[in-house]
């Protein structure tokens, strides 16, 4: 067990006080009282720490009976006044000289502990005086945490800012440790299930751990480790509601990315390396800070691994992609001395919700590993130290290649738009040309009919009617129906090809694609206007031709003289002389 604090910062062991001397000290007073109990029963700080876990403390010890007689009953009363129902003491006289095993005596708050202790001492003194061998007292110290937890909750409710609000406290898990050393065993990657089960690590909230026998503070948005000895002067971490929600979103993204891109055979953990990124707010927790940093390195290693497997011996096997696949086993006695290299690499890899950075980080890490399938945490730290700058450079190159590709694609789109616009304009020009040609043809045909009626008045009506019919059929059947449908089909195919070309261009967003699709809209509108005008022209000309045909046929049937016979002097070699 390590000593997690410098002696000067740890609360001195001393006699218990009946009540805290100031409102800021009640939490630390619990540790003081426990230290007094430990001193009375020969339980030093190390043994007390080893006997404590997240929920309670339970220690067994034996001490010479003479030592027990030095404890005043009033002192025992003070202990129970401090801890109330949380404290239970079982006392049992033992020794080879006792004629028979003694019954244990239990002291608890509701059973007049002072009197019971005095009574036990009297009985034990009698038995001890009769024994020719050393007599010992077996002591079971059982200590809960409800009182200290209540005091911790009250302390948090009084902190300033959003983190002291009811909303924040609703999602805050509070834990207390009478001894800072008792918190240390939890700072190991094989304790992730305990973090999860106790909600010290949670998806939807944060945790505050109070260490009652020490001063100092390590703070982060997801976790705060606070020594209770100097709470009155503690500069509390303040976080806005927006800041808290942004952090939650960031960690949720990181967890989602980790779960999507990694295979873990142990239950998914809410604890991330980002959550363990704690800043020193108040001096005193340097040793805890080192352990947290070491745990953060190992959690970061798990995040960078492609697979994390839990072994039967509770150790974790990390597998890293590469040739060959590297295996690292956690927890490891050494933390690699990487000074946060693994955490920095993981932090960079998980800084965005997309996997690009993670892929690059893993690839660069794999290239920096030493040869051989087994690596230590030190190897991992060394590789991470080299991998981070490599990953940054690779990411720059990756972004640059992405830009080149993007601009090339945009040029393709522009070319497609230009080509399509040219096609549209050509189609428009073809339409105009066709219309112009056909109008000219119509005029020429009309002139031909007039000339023909002058040259051959007798045949002109029939010829004119036939010509009008044929031309009307040409205009309606060929130009209006066939040619214009062909133009429409061609245009629509070109539009479809244009859309396909844009769809085939990689890297364009939907917005960009829509923009490019909209650019030839002016030309397209012009085309359609010309198209519809042309169709109207063809239709009107065709109808007019048919009408002319009908008029001519009708006139011929009614005996209406042709145009040349209506009085106009029509020069004709075959004109009959006047009678």
């Amino acid at each position, binding site marked *: 067990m390590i000593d997690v604090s410098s002696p000067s910062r740890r609360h001195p062991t001393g006699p218990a006080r009946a009540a805290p001397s100031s409102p800021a000290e009640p939490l630390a007073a619990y540790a003081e009282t426990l230290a007094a109990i430990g001193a009375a029963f020969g339980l030093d700080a190390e043994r007390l720490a080893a*006997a404590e876990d997240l929920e309670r403390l339970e220690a067994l010890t034996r001490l010479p009976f003479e030592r027990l007689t030095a404890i005043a009953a009033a002192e025992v009363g003070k202990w129970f006044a401090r801890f109330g129902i949380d404290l239970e003491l079982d006392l049992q006289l033992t020794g080879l*000289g*006792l004629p028979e095993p003694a019954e244990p005596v239990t002291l608890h708050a509701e059973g007049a502990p002072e009197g019971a202790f005095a009574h036990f001492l009297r009985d034990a003194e009698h038995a001890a005086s*009769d024994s020719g061998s*050393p007599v010992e007292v077996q002591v079971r110290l059982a200590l809960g945490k409800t009182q200290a937890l209540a005091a911790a909750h009250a302390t948090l409710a009084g902190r300033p800012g959003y983190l002291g609000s009811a909303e924040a406290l609703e999602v805050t898990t509070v834990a207390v440790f009478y001894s800072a050393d008792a918190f240390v065993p939890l700072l190991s990657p094989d304790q992730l299930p305990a973090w999860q089960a106790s909600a010290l690590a949670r998806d939807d909230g944060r945790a505050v751990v109070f260490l009652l026998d020490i001063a100092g503070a390590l703070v982060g948005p997801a976790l705060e480790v606070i020594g209770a000895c100097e709470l009155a002067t503690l500069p509390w971490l303040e976080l806005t509601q927006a800041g808290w929600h942004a952090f939650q979103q960031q960690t949720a993204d990181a967890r989602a990315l980790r779960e999507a891109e990694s295979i873990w055979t142990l239950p998914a953990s809410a604890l991330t390396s980002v959550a363990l990124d704690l800043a020193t707010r108040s001096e005193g927790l340097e040793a805890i800070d080192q352990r947290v940093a070491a745990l953060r390195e190992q959690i970061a290693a798990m995040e960078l691994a492609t697979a994390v497997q839990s072994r039967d011996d509770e150790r974790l096997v990390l597998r890293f992609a590469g040739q060959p696949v590297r295996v690292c086993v956690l927890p490891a006695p050494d933390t690699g001395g990487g000074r946060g290299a693994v955490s920095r690499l993981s932090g960079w890899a998980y800084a965005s919700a997309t996997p690009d950075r993670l892929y690059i980080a893993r690839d660069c890490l794999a290239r920096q590993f030493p040869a051989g399938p087994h690596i230590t945490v030190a190897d991992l730290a060394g590789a991470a130290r080299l991998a981070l700058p490599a990953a940054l450079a690779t990411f720059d190159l990756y972004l640059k290649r992405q830009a080149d590709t993007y601009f090339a694609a945009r040029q393709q789109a522009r070319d497609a738009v230009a080509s399509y616009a040219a096609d549209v304009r050509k189609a428009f020009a073809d339409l105009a040309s066709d219309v112009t040609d056909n109008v000219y043809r119509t005029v020429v045909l009309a002139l031909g009919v007039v000339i023909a009626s002058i040259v051959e008045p007798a045949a002109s009506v029939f010829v004119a009617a036939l010509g009008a019919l044929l031309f009307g059929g040409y205009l309606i059947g060929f130009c209006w129906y066939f040619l214009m449908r062909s133009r429409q089909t061609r245009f629509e195919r070109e539009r479809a090809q244009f859309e396909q070309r844009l769809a085939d261009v990689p890297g364009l967003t939907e917005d960009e694609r829509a923009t490019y699709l909209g650019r030839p809209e002016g030309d397209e509108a012009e085309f359609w206007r010309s198209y519809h005008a042309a169709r109207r022209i063809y239709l009107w000309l065709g109808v007019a031709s048919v009408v002319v045909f009908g008029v001519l046929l009708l006139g011929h049937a009614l005996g209406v003289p042709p145009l040349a016979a209506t009085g106009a002097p029509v020069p004709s070699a075959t004109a009959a002389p006047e009678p």
Partner: protein
Amino acid sequence: MVRARTATTTRSATGARAAASVGQAGVVSSAPGAIPGASGRVRIEAIIQHQLDNQGAQLVLAQEAGLLTAEAHELFASYIAATAARSDWTGRFAESDGDVVALCAALLGPEQAFVEASQQLAQLLFHQMRPRTISAGDLAALIYSADGDPQRHIALLKLDPQSRPIRAFQRVNGRLRVVYGRADNLLPDERHLQKCALLTAAAPGASFDITLLDTQAGPTAAGVAAFFYRGFLGVALAPSPRRLTRRFVDLCDAWLDAHRAALDPAALFAFYAARRAALDQSDVEVAPFAERALPGHPELRYDLAETLALNLVEGEPPARLEQFSVDRAVVSSLLRYVTLELDGGARLRVRADRFASLLDPTRIRRTGNRYELTISTLTLREVSD
């Protein structure tokens, strides 16, 4: 003078012969052997009892040997068996030519010598009992043989008479009524024996081996607490196999408490199993035991072996003991059952041969400082008796 001669009484009792003795340079040697009378098959040849009322400064000396009924014979045989079973100490007279030695030898002589020797012993004990803090009692001297062996042995028992209420019916004015009184001359039952010595000599004239039941004897005994074995008998004590066996178990537990952090659950259970196996033998050698108990921790073996060797025998100066005989009666429960103590004083008691099927030590997890045990059982009920 009438010597009591009755049929042999058989009682069940176990124990091992007092077997440790202080030798040269503080080294204690240990050798096993059966204590005469431990089996309970005892034939009491002679008995005499004197009253030593130190509270009333009155010494009542019997002048003839006592008469034993069959029931009384059985009671005194049980005293001998209980002394053999519960004796923590062995020893020899510190002065081989002292008065007490001579008187004890005289007890084995003719009837008159037996009576006179017992009277003188009573006077010596009465002298030691002058402080009134010592409870009044009787000294009973017995000559007995055991297990069909004609060899004769001596038992010196300080018996503290017990008292308890009694009732009597009296006719008063022609009418019968019950009257309550108190009998204060009851012989104690075997559980209340506090100071007894069994003396046996390998041959006539040889020095006596003494098996001592004295709950006040021990390394811290001083003043009046030592009046029987030191002041009266003048015995140099050595721990019996019973005490050494209990001491060994206690020392192992204390050593484990101090080194618990270094031992994972599997190593802890390996230690317990090795201890159980060692106690299942007739003798324990501490160095080989340490080797077997700590297969995965060679760095701790020396410390364990030294702790045991130097502390098995209590007192100053330290006496080194490398080997001792096991008193199986003391550890019979430990050999048959694995009893784990858990939080809150909860106890899990499993037959040793079935322990492995119920709880696999290699599957015990540690979460922080906490052990997590997985118990596989087909039975689950609260015991109401």
